[in-house]
């Protein structure tokens, strides 16, 4: 009965509010990792790209999808690794 767009919009609105609440709490110390970590999450496009790159049709859509898979993966893998590398360096004073 209810159209998918409605659900999607609802989800969008809720996520935006949630994003604001969550990010507002991150302290300045962590802003660079936050930036690269969020960047990695934006690689979620990968999930959309996978569906388009695996249709089996040798058409434009498929090639575009494959390209998107590669680019989004750069974002995901690079983003998470570099964030982890940064965060591994953050240490509390012992004792």
């Amino acid at each position: 009965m209810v159209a998918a767009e409605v659900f999607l919009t609802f989800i969008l609105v809720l996520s935006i509010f949630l994003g604001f609440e969550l990010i507002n709490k991150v302290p300045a110390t962590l802003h660079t990792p936050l930036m690269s970590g969020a960047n990695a999450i934006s690689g979620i496009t990968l999930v959309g790209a996978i569906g388009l790159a695996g249709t089996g049709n040798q058409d434009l859509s498929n090639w575009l999808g494959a390209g998107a898979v590669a680019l989004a993966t750069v974002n995901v893998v690079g983003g998470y690794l570099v964030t982890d590398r940064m965060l591994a360096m953050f240490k509390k004073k012992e004792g």
Partner: protein
Amino acid sequence: MDTLIQFAYVVSGALFIFGLKQLGSPATARRGNMISSLGMLLAVVSALLDQGIVEYQWIVVGVLVGAIIGGAAARMVQMTAMPEMVALFNGSGGMASLLVGWAALNTDAATFTLVTIILSILIGGVTFTGSLVAYGKLSEKIGSGAVLFSGQQVVNSLIVLGILAGSVMFCLEPANHLWLYLVIVLSLIFGVMAVIPIGGADMPVVISLLNSYSGLAACAAGFAVNNNILIVAGALVGASGIILTQIMCKAMNRSLSNVLFSGFGSGKTETTAVEGEIKPISVEDAYYVLEAASTVAIIPGYGMAVAQAQHVVKELSVLLEANGAEVNFGIHPVAGRMPGHMNVLLAEADVPYDQLLEMDEINPRMEGVDVAIVIGANDVVNPAARENEGSPIYGMPVINVDQARTVFVLKRSMASGFAGIENPLFYKDNTRMLFGDAKESIGGLVREFS
């Protein structure tokens, strides 16, 4: 099965949220990043299990290529080059959204879908070229100044009109690919045009904003391919980018539109009349003063990143502490070229994060400080922001190093910082200039101590 996959997306959305929650404290941040990456893994695996997928070879090739590039880049990048790196990743994400939007196109799509497709192409394209220009400016591969030319506004208005018209026509006649290509090309051009008039030092703001856009592009792509998790994750990223942008603008006491449209830092310097004389100091003399100090505040800035001096700075702080002094670091929110930039560099050098004080914490203590060592910082310690109403940075909160008993300023010359304005701090009675590359100067101090 399909419903199961969909529920897996729900779980992976929850993991992203949990991950971001844990990113909120240094103690749990690393775990948070892991949790978030787990969410990503789950989402990707679920997508792979989708029954619509009949051929895996191109997916595997794409993932391998992407993983190798991304992994190598992440391993090899220097911490000082973080801003450039993020810009590149950003651009890559934007392009991916553009391609997904394009690939999702089929001519019998509903208008709503067409609108979301064109949105993801548009936002993705702007993010892509905008990020590339930002990367070029930051890494100084292209001139970092603001590029302004007469008629710029007219050109930009024409591009925007073209994009609007093309988008409308595309939604009306999706079968005519001309409109699609027009929008793609124009949005790529627009990304360039939007970023070139912004000075290199404002790039961090631009990157944050583009980060937000890359999230929104993912959202739009999510609407286009009807996928919840893209929307949730994209919106989270969108919100994060906007908040970081706001924080930076606030810390610079400028509005976002001022950053985006005014070409600040494009060379027009407003001179502040300064009085007093410059008093240089040698490394040796500086050592004697530091030896006697019992409280020391270190204020790093962009110059510390340029000189890659974070490790010697850490050494110096340890020696000072061994000598009985209390050492604190004062971190201005926009010191460096990226929010949290100094924190990452000092973390790399093993400075514990509880020794890093934010501006609001260190300022009240400044009067009790014997020596404030300013390492390659300039604008963020400029008292003109407090005192001189005519200064372009008037009103920007700064670290009040001039209230310390003695101030050492380490820089190579009398050149100004990013804002291109004079710094009266250098002329104050209690200021001593320690000229030279920050790494060498501090290295000299370290040698004196040991």
